[in-house]
């Protein structure tokens, strides 16, 4: 795949516009809206439950549209359940994995983009290998490793393992972004005596804003949503992240669906909004991350 620059050239935009066919648009619009309704419907149901009074959920006759609205579902869990702890732990894990991931992915992506060196293919192959594996597949080995090194119930270890499994994607996205930045811009700085590291920090990174944001968002979302590893190596209630907290809510015999879904809405909305905000860049980031 050829490298696609993050900024769509004007020429391409014009080409996309000329493809527009008035006759097909109505059909496409109708189909597009049908798809959208189908996809959002389950989440609408989730939202409807989250604003239902707690007892209405199981009071016959059962119904889908709430008769009354009760926003206390969004506040009560904060005091009656360890929600602050869940959110705190998820934030620590997700921010940690994002920062660590970017910190090590940026230099790796840069050398992969700019140099042909001996271990280049080996490194790329290793990265593709990790994209293939998941914590779930290796969970037994991970659990043994955690026990071996005394890492059970350790948030830092969870951050590091999350990063190990997601960093490959970030490297591939970023190296594509860096490749699309003309080398001549850097060369000018070299002539002025700047170091490689200096040009990376002062020239390349500022030009890679959307790419960095996309890579960062992927790292954040994957860690925020991670389930299997946390389920297995974090048993201390003080260290429970949101994904496990929701799972435990659900596992209770007398589950409170309204609290469960109100919490889910609060946990999912920030990530969804970030994805929507960066929607334009996702497609390019994706192409780079999976096709390189």
């Amino acid at each position, binding site marked *: 795949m050829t490298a696609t620059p993050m900024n769509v050239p004007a020429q*391409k935009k014009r080409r996309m516009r000329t493809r527009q066919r008035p006759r097909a648009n109505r059909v496409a619009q109708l189909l597009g809206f049908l798809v959208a309704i189908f996809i959002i419907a389950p989440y609408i149901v989730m939202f409807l439950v989250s604003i239902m009074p707690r007892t209405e959920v199981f009071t016959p006759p059962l119904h889908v549209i709430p008769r009354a609205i009760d926003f206390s579902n969004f506040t009560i869990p904060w005091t009656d359940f360890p929600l602050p702890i869940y959110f705190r732990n998820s934030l620590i894990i997700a921010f940690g994995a994002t920062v660590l991931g970017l910190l090590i992915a940026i230099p790796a992506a840069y050398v992969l983009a700019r140099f042909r060196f001996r271990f*280049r293919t080996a490194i790329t192959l290793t990265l593709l290998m990790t994209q293939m594996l998941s914590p779930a597949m290796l969970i*037994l080995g991970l659990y043994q490793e955690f026990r071996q090194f005394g890492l059970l119930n350790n948030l830092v270890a969870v951050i590091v393992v999350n990063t*190990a499994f997601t960093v490959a994607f970030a490297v591939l996205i970023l190296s594509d972004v860096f490749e699309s930045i003309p080398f001549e811009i850097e060369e000018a700085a070299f002539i002025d005596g700047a170091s490689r590291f200096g040009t990376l920090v002062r020239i390349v990174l500022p030009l890679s804003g959307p790419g960095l944001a996309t890579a960062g968002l992927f790292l954040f979302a994957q860690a925020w949503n991670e389930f299997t590893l946390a389920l297995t190596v974090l048993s201390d209630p003080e260290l429970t992240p949101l994904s496990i907290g929701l799972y435990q809510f659900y596992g209770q015999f007398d589950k409170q669906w309204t609290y469960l879904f109100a919490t889910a809405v609060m946990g999912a909305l920030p990530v969804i909004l970030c994805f929507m905000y960066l929607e334009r860049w996702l497609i390019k980031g994706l192409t780079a991350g999976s096709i390189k």
Partner: protein
Amino acid sequence: MNQSLQRRAYALWALPVVVLVLVFVAYPLGLLIVSSFSSLSFSGQVTGWAGWDNYQALLIDPALPNVLRNTAGWTVGVVAGTLLISIGVAIVLNENFPGRRVVRWILVIPWATSLIITSLVFAWLFDSRLGTINVIGMSAGILSDPIAFLGAGQTAKLILIFVGIFVSVPFTTYLLLSGLQGIPAEYYEAASIDGANRIRRFRYITLPLLRPFIQLAGLLNAIYVFNSFPIIWILTRGGPANDTQTIITYMYKMAFSTDETGKAAALGTGGFFLLLLLGSAYWITLRRSNRITG
């Protein structure tokens, strides 16, 4: 010479990534494979060499054929369904129409939402007592009694595959969309002038040019689905009676619930080698598509 020395130094910039992957991906993989040839204590500690014992125990496990069949059915079902739907959705979203932005925003929701939350929503929709499907079905008079959708093997399988497709479509659609956007409009214009209708244009332009992307999307999806744990674990836990157990969930159950760590390690190792096959196909496809598209 100086240049090449310098270049080798730059390889060090990639070192942290490589070390991290070796310590937390390659090493646990090694532990998994070693465990599969070891006898293990109650808590999963290696106590000695076991040769092929774990594999033998796994092979005579009466649940194994079912687990393998389920894994194949789950993976093939989700990937095939995802590709079919995503090709259609990508073609629709490649057209310009008012509101396309909103549709694309909505499309990212299942992708951005955690599998836990999406699975919980479907657990609710298909709940045997309060679930939305039952409630709507009953009040519309279609159902006379609520159905325990997830309580029967056959419907549970179909629902799991449905949820798998639901969460896979956004990523796959985006990938295919990037492929569609790379097809020059001139091809379509030339074909139209030659009198090719929509179907023929799809058959002879879109499909061949999109093929590398379809292959990649399918393989990536297959790898992802093969690895997937939360959907099944939340909706059915592999039940009823192991009817929806896949390699991943059965391995997890054996390792952490029923104390059959050795067998779990053997199954995990087998799963890894199956994944390796998929991965090699991915790698070969990458190489080939690189050659095709330059």
